[in-house]
C-alpha cells in the first residue's frame, strides 16, 4: 500500500465519517481490508463520531434548560413591554466551566437532600398550582428519591455490536460504582462511597480522589433525569409487560425528527429502560443505544471499595481550590 494512496483513502474516509462506507465503494473497502493503518484510522474516526453523538446526547438537558429559561422570561414580560435580559454568567476563568448556580446551593450539595427537596418542591408546586397531576419529571425524581439499589447498564451499539458499555451499581448508604468498557476493555472506573470519589482511567498510572459529590447525584446524571423536563409524548403502542409488570412508554424527538428517545417507566414511575433510535436512509429506525435499569438487585459490597491496581498512584484533589 503506497503512502499516497493511503492519504487519498483517509481523505475519502473523512467525508464518510458519521455514516458508513458505501457498498459500491468496493476499491475503498478492499483497501481498508488490507491496510491496517487505514483500518485503524477508520475505526478511530468511527469512535470520534460515536463520542460526538454521545456528547451531543448528553447536552440535551442543556437545550431543555435553554427552552425553559426563554419561556420563563417571556412569561414574565407584560405585553408591549421589553424583555428582561437573562442573568449573565461570570466570564469563565481561562475558558473553564461555569457551574450553574443551582448546584452551588448548599441544600443541593447533599444529593439525597437535594433530590428529596426537588421532589417536595415539585409536589408543592403541583398542589399550589392545582395542575391536576404531577409532571413526568416530578414523578421520575420522586421515584428516584425512594430507591434502595440501582443496577444500570447502558450500551452504545454500532453495526449491531456493543461499541461502548457503561455499568453502574448503586446502593443507598454504600455508594455508587461505575465502569466503562470500550472494545472489550475496561477504560474507566469511578467509585463514590459517599465520603470520597475515585476516578481511574485505564492505562493511567494516576488516579484521583476527591470529596464525594453524592452517589445518588451520579445516578441521576447518568439516567439523564433532566431530559424528563421536556415534552415526552405517551406512546401506548410501545408499552411492554415485563414479568407481569406494565411498563409505560414515552417518546421524545429532536427538533428535526431524526432522533427519537423512547423511555419506559414502571408503575412506580421508575425508569426501567430506554432506547435511542435514529432515522436511517431507507426511512426505518435504527437503535443505536439502549439502557436497562433494575432496582431490586443487591450489589456486591466490595464494588464500593476502591481497589485499584497496585501501580496506580491515587492523588488527592480538592475541586474547591
Amino acid at each position, binding site marked *: 500500500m503506497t503512502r499516497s494512496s493511503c492519504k487519498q483513502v483517509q481523505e475519502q474516509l473523512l467525508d464518510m465519517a458519521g455514516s458508513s462506507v458505501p457498498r459500491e465503494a468496493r476499491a475503498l473497502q478492499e483497501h481498508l481490508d488490507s491496510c491496517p493503518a487505514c483500518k485503524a484510522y477508520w475505526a478511530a474516526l468511527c469512535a470520534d463520531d460515536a*463520542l460526538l453523538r*454521545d456528547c451531543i446526547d448528553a447536552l440535551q438537558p442543556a437545550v431543555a434548560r435553554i*427552552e425553559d429559561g426563554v419561556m420563563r422570561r417571556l412569561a414574565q414580560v407584560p405585553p408591549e413591554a421589553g424583555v428582561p435580559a437573562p442573568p449573565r454568567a461570570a*466570564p469563565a476563568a481561562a*475558558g473553564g466551566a461555569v457551574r450553574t448556580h443551582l448546584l452551588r446551593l448548599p441544600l443541593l450539595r447533599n444529593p439525597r437532600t437535594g433530590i428529596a427537596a426537588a421532589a417536595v418542591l415539585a409536589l408543592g408546586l403541583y398542589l399550589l398550582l392545582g395542575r391536576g397531576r404531577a409532571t413526568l419529571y416530578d414523578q421520575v425524581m420522586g421515584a428516584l428519591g425512594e430507591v434502595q439499589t440501582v443496577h444500570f447498564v447502558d450500551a452504545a451499539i454500532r453495526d449491531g455490536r456493543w461499541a461502548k458499555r457503561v455499568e453502574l451499581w448503586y446502593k443507598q448508604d454504600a455508594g455508587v460504582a461505575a465502569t466503562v468498557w470500550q472494545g472489550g476493555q475496561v477504560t474507566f472506573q469511578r467509585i463514590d462511597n459517599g465520603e470520597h470519589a475515585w*476516578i481511574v482511567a485505564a492505562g493511567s498510572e494516576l488516579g484521583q480522589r476527591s470529596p464525594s459529590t453524592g452517589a445518588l447525584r451520579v445516578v441521576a446524571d447518568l439516567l439523564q433525569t433532566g431530559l424528563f423536563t421536556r415534552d415526552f409524548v405517551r406512546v401506548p403502542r410501545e408499552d411492554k409487560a415485563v414479568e407481569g409488570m406494565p411498563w409505560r412508554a414515552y417518546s421524545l424527538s429532536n*427538533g428535526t425528527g431524526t432522533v427519537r428517545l423512547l423511555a419506559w417507566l414502571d408503575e412506580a414511575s421508575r425508569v426501567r429502560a430506554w432506547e435511542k433510535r435514529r432515522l436511517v436512509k431507507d426511512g426505518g429506525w435504527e437503535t443505536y443505544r439502549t439502557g436497562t435499569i433494575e432496582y431490586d438487585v443487591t450489589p456486591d459490597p466490595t464494588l464500593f471499595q476502591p481497589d485499584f491496581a497496585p501501580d496506580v498512584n491515587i492523588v488527592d484533589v480538592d475541586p474547591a481550590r
Partner: protein
Amino acid sequence: MDLEVEKALVASCRNGDRGAYAELVKLHAGRVFAICFGMLGNRHDAEDMAQQTLLKGFMQIQGIRDSGHFAPWIARIARNLCIDVIRQRKRPAAPAAGVADPGARTEEWEYGRLEGALAQLSSDYRVPLLLFYFDGHSTKSIAATLGTTQAAIQARLSRGRKQLRKLLKAEGAE
C-alpha cells in the same frame, strides 16, 4: 421543517402570539446552542448566550425580512452576540480542562476530553461539526443556516474531523 409552517409561526409571532414563538424556540434551541457552543467553545457560556439569542429574536421578530428564513436569521443574531462576547474576553478561551473534573460524572470525564479537543478547533470547523450532530446530519440544512454552500460545509466538516482526530490522538483519547 415545513417552510410554510415556519412562515406561519413567524407571522403569528409578529402578531404577538407567544405560543408560536415557543414553538420556534423548541425547534431552534438545539441549533442556536450548537452555534453558540461552536463560537464560544464553552457550553456553559453557550447556554447563557443561546437564551439571550432567543430572547433577542423575540424582541426583534418584527425586523425579520423573510419569514421563511428564521433559521439563518436567528443564527446571525447568535453569531453577532458571540462575537461581542469574544471581543470582551480580549483573549481566546483556553481549552477546557482535558482531565477529569473529579466532581464530574463518569461520562463527563470522557466528554471533558472531547470538549478540550473541540475548544482547540477553529470555530470555522467547530460550528459546522456541532451543527452536524445537533441538526440531523443535514449538510444542506447547515449550509442554509450558516448562509454558505453545501460543498463548503462538507469541506469544513472533513477538515474539522481531521483536526479533531489529531487533537484526540495527541490527548491519548483513543
